[in-house]
């Protein structure tokens, strides 16, 4: 897929207002994003026309049940690019989703700023790191976590704190571009560990191809 072509999305959320909001954000995107299907059940992603969408936007909390980690796993195993879009704002959920192979993890309070970009990045196999996820990765103390440099950890945490790459860049004396590359590198390191998934592999492959990371670094 080219990096400027139109992107099709299936949105799974049980709240109509949220669905409406998402469609409005996508409509404002300079690069066309089409919501081909939307609904309150994961079935939308498995049936026509949702089954052909480039990206799945998945609310983790559907109905009364617990977080839909099982649905996420099945979608990832089917090779789908999933953007998790959740009310839950805690480290554990974010890390679990990433480990299962989600393209990215977004909290609902971050939607306005980050959903469009996150969707496009997922469609292109590019890494995307919203602040809530950065906070989770920056404080991750699980034994199987990838080795991060002090600078990488700092960038993650400060991005989480300030939600402004300009502020982070200013504080650390870097350019915004460099800040971005630190965040991308961390995302690739995470894609490279834990449970293997095709989405993770394509993320790494794309990163190597784009020169974001060196093969030797991994």
């Amino acid at each position, binding site marked *: 897929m080219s990096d400027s072509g139109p992107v099709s999305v299936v949105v799974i959320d049980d709240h109509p207002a949220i669905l409406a909001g998402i469609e409005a954000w996508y409509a404002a995107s300079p690069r066309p994003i089409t919501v081909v299907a939307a609904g309150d059940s994961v079935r939308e992603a498995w049936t026509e026309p949702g089954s052909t969408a480039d990206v799945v936007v998945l609310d983790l909390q559907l109905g009364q049940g617990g977080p839909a980690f099982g649905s996420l796993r099945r979608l990832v195993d089917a090779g789908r690019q999933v953007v998790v879009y959740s009310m839950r*704002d805690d*480290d554990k959920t974010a890390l679990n989703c990433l480990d299962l192979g989600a393209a990215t993890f977004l909290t609902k*309070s971050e939607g306005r700023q980050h959903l469009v970009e996150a969707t496009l990045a997922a469609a292109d196999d590019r890494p995307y790191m919203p602040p*809530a996820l950065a*906070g*989770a990765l*920056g*404080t991750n*103390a699980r034994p199987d976590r990838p080795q991060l440099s002090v600078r990488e*950890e700092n960038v993650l*945490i*400060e991005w*989480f*704190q*300030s*939600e*402004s790459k*300009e*502020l982070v860049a*200013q*504080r650390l004396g870097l350019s915004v571009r460099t800040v971005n590359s630190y965040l991308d590198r961390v995302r690739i390191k995470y894609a490279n560990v834990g449970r293997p998934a095709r989405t993770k592999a394509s993320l790494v492959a794309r990163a190597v191809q784009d020169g974001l990371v060196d093969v030797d670094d991994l």
Partner: protein
Amino acid sequence: MDGPGSSERLLNRTLERYGVWLRSTVVALCSALGVVSADRADMPLATALLAPALLACGVRLYTLRRPLPSAALGMVSLLWLADGSVVVLTGLSQPVLGGDVAEMMVEAIIGICIITFQHEWATRPWAGAALGVLGAAACELGDILSGHSPDAMPLLRLAVLGALSRAAYLIVRARARAADRSAALSAAARREAEVAAARRAAEREYLATLHDTASATLLMVSQGDGRDWSWLPARARQDLEALSAVPAFGTGSVDLAALLACVPAGEGPARVRLTTTIDSPLVIPSGPALAIFNGVREAVSNVSRHAGVREAELRAWRADDDVVVELTDAGRGFDPESVPPRRRGIKGSIIGRMQAVGGSAAITSLPGNGTRVQWRWHAPAQQLPAGTLQPPRARARTALVQLIRKQLLHGAQLAALLISLFSQFTLSLHRLVSYQDVYRPAWAQTAAFGCLAAVAGIGAFYLLRGKQIPPPVRWCSLGAVLAVSVIGAFTLPPDRLAGAADWSFGLVGWYALFLLADLRLRWFAAFLGVHVGITVIVVLLAGAPTTAEAIGLGIRAISDCGFQLSVGFLLTRLLHGTAPAAGIAAEQEEELRTRERIQEDMQRDHKDRYRALTATTVPLLVGLGHGVLSPHDEEVRLRCGVEAARMRRLFAESDAVSDALLNEVRACIEVAEHQGVTVSLAVRGRPAEVPVSVRRELVDPVAVTLGRTRSTARVTVVWTPGAVRVSVVSEDGATRQTAEADKQATDVQVTVVRTTRGASVWVEASWRQPALARVA
């Protein structure tokens, strides 16, 4: 602790009294006996010698009642001379009176004097010892002047008496000291607890006062704009006064009715019309009265703030032993269960204050149904006679008295055992060996000697291990001692009874004393009666004794058993008079010390707290109070907002929550949200324990930055292994950054970094600690 403890002090005093009284009695009785039995011609000279001796005893008795200006050396040496003159005069009277009775009398007086001097002069052992030597010399002088050849035996006997007396004192004193030591230890522990409780109560009261005064005022200023502020200067000055007042540790009483009559009804538009029905007078201690008054004041301001009405009813009355105060309004009410834990108006100002002084406060409210706040104070002091202690105190004192009694008893038993053993194996053994041919049969006396030794051994077995003698052992031993008394009486020729050959007559009493020490005196007296009675019966069975024999027996009986009985009496005094008195004295001293400590600590705490405010709140209140700072000035309002947020954080410090840091951050956020700021809060990582001083530094930038924010802000708390980072980003904080700098970070451990970009400002405080203990 300074000086001797209360048990030791009272022991010394009791012994001194006992010594002087015993000596004076013996001197009076014996000298009267001596003068009566003397030749008519010698009487004036004998009287001239013995009357001054009696007078000296009288002086000594007088000083017991009215102690001399204590340490004056001159007075002490005068007393010493008076005591010395008693023995010298008695010694000199021996040649004047002449005869065996005189010798016996002088020996008895000087013997008792030497014993009692060791107790009278217990705290000046050298003076006591010197008096002992003087007494022995006087006794010897009297013998020589009477024409006897110098004899070492009486001297040796006197030396033994003095040494035993001193040793007995030392043993009992050691136990008294042990009692004082353990009493001091437990008292210190109790004192620490009481001081800590008082400090906590003062801290709670301080926070409640801060909440009701400065915090409320500053919050109002920070929120308001363009309203009537005419009431503000007076209120700010009142707040300052309330904050600078040293916490009262008062015990007086006040009329609650009079206090409630001046509950402020609020100012300006916040005025509440109070309908009052107050029974007058309601005199209660000032602590609860102030707690109720301050609580009512806060509740009235709550009516105007939250209830949505401008009327309330205040009632106060006495119900049995309780004083009840009730404030009701017909306002919109609320659900008490749903009040967030950080809201302190009810928890701190109303309920907490009342609990701190031992009362209670309850709030009844339902949404839409008005609110009723009720304070209740139970008056225990009026029920109990003055001086009655609270139960825990009384228990502590009873335990203390028992401890002192136990130690004194143990010491006395050890001393009696020492006297028994020593007398048995010196004087008595010497007599037993010397008079073997007099006893009929001799083996019975020897067996009796062994029997007493066995009793001593069994007693020592228990006492030396610090245990009481078990009752069965006690009664068996006592039976054995009585058997010795019988054997002694029946295996001696009646004319030798109680004489030099009767080694057991004076000894048996000491054994009975240590066996019966813990029982009432009448047991011991009864035993001595039986013991003397046996001897008397044996003597009477042998035919009527001559007058001289009868007098000799009488003097023996009185000087041995009478003395032992007096020691028994002394012991009773020690256990039932001295021990409780020592307990009370110790408790009073302890209470005084506790009060002093509380006073000291509370004043220091108060100074510390006030000093903390002088950098921040005090200048604001002073400025507002004197009109230098105007509430119309936006900068002033911002500063007030910052201080209000800082205070909310301070109040949150005492909340019992697992994540104290987050709780304090939330307290600051609530103040900002109250001002209409949109704040998002996000937390990452696992929380850990952070010391309160570090928390202050970490959260302060949040309070300051949020106080200067009017639009939106983001607050985050990030826990990484070994560090915690608190950050706040304000969208518009940079525009109001002018006048007031951040509070200077006094704690170097906390690093504060600030980044400004356009209107937004980002402040992060972080604290590194390698061993960050995780909260579960």
